[in-house]
């Protein structure tokens, strides 16, 4: 890979090649609940990493510790060689929240929310510059929300709401973007648009960590996968990590899954079988002889 080509030509660019290292992170909530135990993984620039695990496995907790919202009781998070606090001061991390976390009745317009992405770049009195306004316009354009810019945020559909917060992350020019379940409640069109945008960002060297229950799409757009269940079970390239064995380990039987094989599937003695695993959204399909077989990907998402 030609690294020079992945460096965006932006005027403001604190770290051309962002990286994220989570090292032995243990998080204990005040009530004694150990949400994560010695979680470790690391990711580099130009990556879309899927964060996959059951409800309560610690995905949001992991995000919170990367943003310094919860302090790990052991281990450390390192962002491009810096501590979390330093990285936050430089606006390196952008966060796209889960829809339930947002107060949709708050009196702000779409463009106001996107402008909030610029706030860390503004001076003492927080007056937006011409560049701030231009970046807001571009961000709205890129997510296709320009015509809704004067709407109050509660007056949007679920998919449009997601796009607004994506635009805010773009305007912020964060090099590491954390997305907490961006696909819940969006249709295939918006999902495709979001994935397309993430691919563009990957091409310009961004690092994205995306939590999702949408297993079927993971092999489709993630080049790395982090499997969690109260710790990091496995992390690495999708092809190595996103296997049937690992998924069954991570989901411990809570996945809906069924096999189709033998005489149900083949007329001859073909040992290969189809396995469908689903965490309630788009299922992942495996085809092969063993549990170690690769997912039957890319999923034919273009078919209408």
């Amino acid at each position: 890979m030609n690294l020079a080509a992945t460096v965006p030509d932006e005027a403001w660019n604190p770290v051309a090649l962002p990286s994220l290292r989570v090292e032995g992170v243990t998080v204990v909530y005040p009530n004694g609940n150990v949400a994560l135990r010695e979680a470790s993984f690391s990711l580099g620039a130009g990556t879309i990493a899927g964060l996959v695990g059951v409800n309560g496995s610690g995905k949001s907790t992991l995000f919170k510790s990367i943003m310094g919202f919860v302090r790990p009781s052991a281990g450390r998070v390192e962002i491009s060689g810096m501590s979390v606090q330093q990285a936050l001061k430089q606006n390196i991390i952008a966060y796209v929240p889960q829809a339930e976390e947002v107060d949709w009745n708050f009196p702000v317009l779409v463009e106001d929310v996107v402008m909030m992405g610029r706030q860390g770049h503004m001076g003492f009195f927080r007056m937006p510059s011409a560049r701030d306004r231009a970046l807001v316009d571009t961000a709205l354009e890129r997510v296709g929300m320009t015509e809704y810019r004067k709407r109050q945020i509660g007056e949007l559909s679920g998919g449009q709401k997601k796009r607004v917060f994506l635009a805010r992350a773009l305007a912020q020019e964060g090099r590491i973007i954390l997305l907490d379940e961006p696909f819940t409640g969006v249709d295939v069109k918006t999902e495709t648009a979001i994935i397309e945008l993430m691919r563009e960002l990957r091409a310009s060297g961004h690092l994205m960590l995306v939590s999702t229950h949408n297993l079927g799409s993971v092999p489709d757009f993630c080049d790395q996968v982090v499997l969690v269940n109260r710790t990091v079970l496995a992390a690495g390239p999708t092809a190595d990590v996103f296997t049937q064995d690992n998924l069954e380990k991570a989901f411990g039987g809570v996945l809906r899954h069924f096999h189709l094989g033998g005489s149900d599937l083949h007329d001859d003695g073909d040992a290969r079988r189809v396995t469908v695993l689903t965490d309630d959204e788009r299922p992942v399909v495996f085809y092969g002889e063993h549990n170690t077989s690769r997912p039957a990907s890319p999923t034919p998402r273009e078919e209408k």
Partner: protein
Amino acid sequence: MPDLLAPFAYDYMVKAIWVSALVGAVCAFLSAYLMLKGWSLIGDALGHAVVPGVAGAYMLGLPYAVGAFFAGGLAAAAMVLVRQRTRLREDAVIGIVFTSFFALGLFMVSLNPTAVDVQSIVLGNILGISDADVVQVMIISLVSLAVLLAKWKDLMLVFFDENHARTVGLNPRALQILFFALLAACTVAALQTVGSILVIAMVVTPGATAYLLTDRFQVLLVLAVLLGAVTAALGAYVSFFLDGATGGIIVTLQTALFLLAFFFAPKHGRFAARRRALATREAN
């Protein structure tokens, strides 16, 4: 017909009018944030919780603002502590803390009835405000306004999306503490104008009214501050003719404007909603 300019011939009236306007403006500024978070009751709690501080300050001969601020801070800390250590709901915690502070205040006043004019704390007495108190109220209000003008956008971010605020390098905890310190200070300032019972109206109603009139936070702030300042000044002015309690008149005016907005606001008012419902029914 009464002489409409008569109040301006009296020094104490002129003073009352502009001090009220100033206090009304700062309280309204804070109200824009408070009502969005569902924290309105905290304003009420602080208004009552400062009473023992004022009583204590009078007894010790300290400026009343010092005592009030101390008691307000203590009450806020007590609320946070009880909230963290128990599973009680917020409203229960607030109710327990502020009534116990208020009771303590009344008890202190009853021990030493001559030192404190309890009525001026509970009901306010802007028409009889002393020059020393004017100075205190002015310092509190002007400092608070200056801080708010510099920090209003950061506070908005913290109130809207704490996580995002963190990612742009802000310190949400510090900004929240700053906000509650300002709230406690302004509650103290408002004691003189409307009294502890009606402080809640000053830090809720203007924001709530403005919320019905706009979908933009910066517009909401401007509207709230205007509403707060004008109603407070007008209330003080009118109380000259009615010989009534200034606080009662100010809050009545604010409520009247709230009701107007509630029914006639162009987008969020009841009638607008009704018109839209009718229009869609006819269209179908």
